[in-house]
């Protein structure tokens, strides 16, 4: 089966520095994969490179079509939603305005309305705060908003950058449970970058471990979870 996302030899960097030194990974339709690694390993850069937000080289294929070099806005229009680190919410706009922006590329008013209902369905707290300025929401609520906004696009692929960052464990569990639900119900493939390896491995079916811009381990998540030596040396638990 052809992969939804197929990345070969991805290099990327900022300014004069090089962060990624040529990595390969893939994700099939409806699958969930995690990219793990320590701070500075290049995880966030990987997601940014897939969306062409940083200077990068290599081949990135979405359902067989090359998207490396394509403008970020156009990659998004092909069904790739990216929830960046720091959530990227529009702080001065309301919750509902943020969600509507998620559906910016859609012309179908009914679909947009349905999308809003779905989002409020997954995250009732957002419905309560729909006219509030997004910047006044708590960290957890902003993460819910960010994910919902990404889903408004009806993406085939959802890129999530450190969804657990700065959030209380209970909220994180809630969010991860909903992500599992979204993946099952809407058949959205998820590429997840996480520092919290335990959570990520519980959700993902496949995992990749980055160290200073290179892929050192790749395999089924269940195996990596079982392997104590990997867990101790690379994942810290």
């Amino acid at each position, binding site marked *: 089966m052809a992969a939804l996302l197929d990345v070969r030899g991805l290099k990327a960097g900022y300014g004069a520095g090089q962060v990624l030194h040529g990595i390969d990974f893939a994700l099939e339709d409806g699958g969930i994969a995690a990219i793990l690694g320590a701070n500075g390993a290049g995880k966030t850069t990987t997601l940014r490179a897939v*969306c062409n*937000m940083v200077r990068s080289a290599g081949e990135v294929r979405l359902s067989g079509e090359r998207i490396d070099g394509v*403008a*970020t*806005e156009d990659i*998004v*229009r092909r069904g790739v*939603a*990216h929830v*960046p680190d720091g959530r*990227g*919410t*529009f*702080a*001065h*706009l309301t919750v509902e*305005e943020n969600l*509507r*922006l*998620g559906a*910016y*590329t859609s012309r179908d008013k009914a679909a947009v309305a349905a999308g809003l209902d779905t989002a409020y369905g997954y995250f009732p707290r957002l419905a309560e705060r729909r006219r509030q300025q997004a910047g006044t929401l708590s960290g957890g609520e902003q993460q819910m908003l960010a994910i919902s*906004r990404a889903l408004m*696009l009806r993406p085939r692929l959802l890129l999530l950058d450190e969804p657990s960052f700065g959030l209380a464990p209970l909220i994180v569990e809630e969010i991860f449970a909903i992500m599992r639900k979204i993946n099952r119900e809407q058949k959205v493939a998820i590429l997840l970058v996480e520092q919290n390896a335990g959570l990520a491995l519980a959700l993902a079916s496949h995992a990749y471990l980055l160290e200073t811009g290179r892929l050192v381990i790749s395999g089924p998540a269940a195996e990596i979870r079982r392997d104590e030596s990997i867990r101790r040396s690379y994942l810290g638990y």
Partner: protein
Amino acid sequence: MEAFWHQVFSGLAAGGVYASLALALVMIYQATHLVNFAQGEMAMFSTYIAWALIQAGLPYWAAFFLTLGIAFAGGIVIERVVIRPLAGSSVLAVVIVFIGLLVIFNAMAGWIFSYIVKTFPSPFPAAAPFGNKYIGSHELGVIAVTLIVLVLLYLFFRHTKLGLAMRAAAENPVSSRLVGIRVGWMLALGWGLAAAVGAVAGMMVAPIVFLDPNMMSGILLYAFAGALLGGIDNPAGAVFGGFAVGVLENLIGAFVIGNELKLSVALALIVGVLVVRPQGLFGQRLVTRV
């Protein structure tokens, strides 16, 4: 007392012009964190275009709206061709280019239309409404037009998808790209709208100060003062600032220091606001990045 109210009302009318131009300045500032020094000259040049259309035989309102369209298109072209390539340049480089634009528009107006002062028609009747002694028809018309423009812009930005996208692009370009917004075109649209609003200001003030290439330099100063007073990143604040400056300038000019020094009031306001409270009355705290 009559003199006082007369000054207040004509101050409001002048303030309407300043508020419109200030709004144009703020629109560009919000999207780009840049102050368009050339806004006044662009408005002046648009007014000359309107004049030429009227000379060619077009009825006033047809010329008015056609000029708005031309100004809109011109703003977009300028952003795409002149301003876009400067993204990421130093402040000095951008300021220099703005001054260059200012000079070009001023020179083009003088070259094409000559420096001879011209009259520009007002679409409003000559007689004061109901024969009152406080406010003339044109002044009332200017206030009305300014308010209509403001309401239209407000509705556009708050209640349309495109307006929402423009606000998003100004606030957070990176996140905007991630929802598929073409940020570059949003900037261009912002310039187009700002140019059109500036054209309105020019066409409203020309009947009062008469049309000549240097008509807008003082007005631009008042618009700067108004925008800074209200808050350079706050559209409603800028509008308030524009009206406030109009009234203040008239009152101070008439009763305190005399009409010849009115521009220094603007200068004092600008320097004062920048030194004492740079975010103005309603703007957000500006963080100087280290």
